[in-house]
């Protein structure tokens, strides 16, 4: 993995396609990925690039908690890239969906078009920002910060094009699912043991005039 980016650049046959598998059987809901991401990427207060949604099901004493670590799905067919009027949202050769801070004008169209609500307007920079799989770490042959920090190794990162990589093996052998497959975006973040309720139970609607 260490020099896969260079080989991709030099026109080698193997081109990586980064993806992630989140094994929810291992996730303990400690929010370490969330904190590490904020630290690594200097994410301002009130904004998250990656977070863990936590729900509680059932009635006391029979309750159970489910977690859903959420991040950009780095879709194969990203809506945000299609709708961006100035080509600021783009997809790299290796599948990472990123925002070019020099091109972005902050119109927020991609934010309203993303079915996963993973984009935010950076309050200081005035541009759209989102998870980019810590591209600078990946380019150096490292794993994204959240993957590195996960104490139970619930997040697994790797090259989906490499059949021997752990992610490719998991996607091939385990029953995996993606978020909102009906949107046709083909997410490349896979979940093992995803609880449907983490998507169905939603936060309260809060309108401007409610406050």
């Amino acid at each position: 993995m260490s020099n896969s980016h260079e080989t991709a650049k030099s026109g080698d046959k193997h081109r990586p396609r980064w993806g992630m598998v989140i094994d929810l059987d291992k996730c303990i809901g400690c929010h370490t990925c969330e904190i590490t991401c904020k630290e690594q990427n200097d994410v301002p207060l009130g904004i998250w690039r990656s977070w863990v949604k936590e729900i509680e099901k059932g009635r006391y004493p029979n309750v159970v908690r489910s977690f859903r670590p959420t991040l950009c799905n780095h879709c194969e067919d990203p809506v945000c890239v299609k709708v961006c009027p100035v080509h600021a949202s783009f997809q790299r050769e290796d599948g990472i969906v990123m925002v070019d801070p020099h091109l972005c004008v902050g119109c927020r169209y991609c934010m309203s078009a993303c079915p996963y609500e993973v984009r935010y307007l950076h309050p200081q920079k005035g541009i759209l920002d989102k998870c980019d799989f810590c591209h600078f770490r990946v380019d150096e042959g490292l794993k994204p910060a959240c993957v590195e920090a996960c104490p139970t190794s619930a997040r697994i990162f790797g090259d989906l094009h490499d059949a021997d990589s752990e992610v490719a093996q998991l996607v091939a052998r385990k029953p995996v699912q993606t978020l909102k497959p009906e949107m046709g975006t083909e997410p490349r973040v896979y979940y093992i043991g995803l609880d449907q309720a983490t998507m169905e139970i939603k936060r309260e609607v809060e309108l401007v005039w409610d406050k």
Partner: protein
Amino acid sequence: MGQIVYDVHYQTSLGFLISYYFYLTGLSAGSFMISTLSYGFGMEKYKPASKMGVVTAVLLLMLAPQFLLMQVAWPVKSLWHNFVYLNPLSAISYGAFLLVLYPLNSIIYGIFMFKDNKKWTKFFGLLGIPLALAVHGYTGWILALGIARDYWNTALMPIVFLFSAMVSGISMMILMIMIRDRFFTKEKKINREIIDGLAKILGWLLVVDLFLVFCDYSILLYSGQEGQEVAHFMLFGKMAFGFVVMENLIGKIIPLIIVMVPKLRNSYFLLVLAAVMNMIGILAMRIVTVYGGQALPLM
């Protein structure tokens, strides 16, 4: 059964400024349509409304993009990035061109109209109709291509936007013609014929508009989970006052009754009331559609 233990805060992407922008472009497109009735289509009866229509269309279309620029975080950058780094797949890209071409065309059309050059006025008037349709229709596309929201992602959205634009534009023209005739002419007498004609057009456009809303909602109520959720949110939930009362009852049904019943239509007071209510209702429609359409959480 269950509750959220932890979730993060989300930002609202398209705010009220976008609603106002859509409202103003709608008014502009509507008044442009009225101005072309006489010069473009030869309906001589509407000639007194033409000059007013084109001036209003240009002024509103100069005002409208200001709201757009206020919404954009980098307004100056957006002025040229939209043209230089154009993405042909994005609806906003086309908007950038339309927002330049349509006012330009309207200005040329207006100049020929004020110079009384019938031939060129007709040419630029007819040329302006597809532009006016596009400049407002594309705003419907912007929302419809935001596939994440079930409320927006419908093929009806551009058509709904066009009809709401025309009704609000006609209401505004009715009001403006009445004010001008009553206070700014020598005779101080309102041109009954033109007001009556516009009110009738308004009535039929309102019928189509209500029919489109009915189509939209009847299908939304039968669609997937999120579609049903948003329909319930609009009809019975927190947005019910905005959608049912403001947009449809005050904005469309009451004005429809006033303009369709000849006895009521004859009263200037009721007609002014209908036009004002309709304009308020369409503003509510913009807010309900833009802000309400994305109020429900997605994940």
